[in-house]
């Protein structure tokens, strides 16, 4: 479990100009964990895809959203949450095929539509890919 994990939370306004801040933040965290530069680029892209979708779909519904980075020994779990739970399941398989393909290709685990109070969406990357 994640008993020894460190939690870092980032709250951002739902505005396009702050998506790059999410990229910079996750880049620093992933670098600190020891991911190589190529994997860090992948994680940045995945985080940015989700942030962009919230900005596109959610800016009329909420003012901000939260990214929760859970740093454990061998895994970076990135969760997304918002006070407006209608932002759950924002990816649509018909319209977001590029984004969904990118998330699934770049991350080890992706849960797009989580039915609990903690997160709306999570994705994880392992330092040594789980077999």
């Amino acid at each position, binding site marked *: 479990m994640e008993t020894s994990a460190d939690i870092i939370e980032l709250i951002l306004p739902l505005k*396009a100009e702050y*998506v*790059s801040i999410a990229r910079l933040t996750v880049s620093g965290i992933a670098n600190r964990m020891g991911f190589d530069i*190529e994997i860090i680029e992948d994680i940045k*892209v995945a985080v*940015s895809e989700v942030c962009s979708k919230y900005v596109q779909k959610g800016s009329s519904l909420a003012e901000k959203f939260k990214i929760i980075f859970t740093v454990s020994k061998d895994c970076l779990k990135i969760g997304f949450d918002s006070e407006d739970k209608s932002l759950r399941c924002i990816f649509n398989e018909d319209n977001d095929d*590029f984004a969904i393909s*990118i998330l699934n290709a770049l991350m080890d685990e992706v849960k797009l539509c989580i039915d609990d109070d903690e997160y709306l969406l999570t994705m994880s990357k392992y330092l040594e890919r789980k077999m």
Partner: protein
Amino acid sequence: MVISMKQELRIYEEQLSDYVKVTISGEADIYTSSELKERLYDIIEKNQADLKIDCSQLNYIDSTGLGIFAGAFKKAKEIDKKIYLTGLKNNIKKLFVITGLDKLFIIEE
């Protein structure tokens, strides 16, 4: 000629004899996507020529930017023109492959 000045994204256009050279530098994400779309589509409509897009200074692209490239391909195809991409960084080329867009463009090293 510099035709886009948003700090995070710069687009340069140069008319050559057989094609138009377009240099894109910076980040093509949701923040810059509207400008990328406007400028790229305008270049295609205005010049009615093949495009060679130099991506060697393009540091980042997301699905929004990729969608605009796909739209540019359709626009160019409508007037029977081609788009060449040069200098793609590995992390960006990877996204073209993941999304299948690598099959639409002529990708040169």
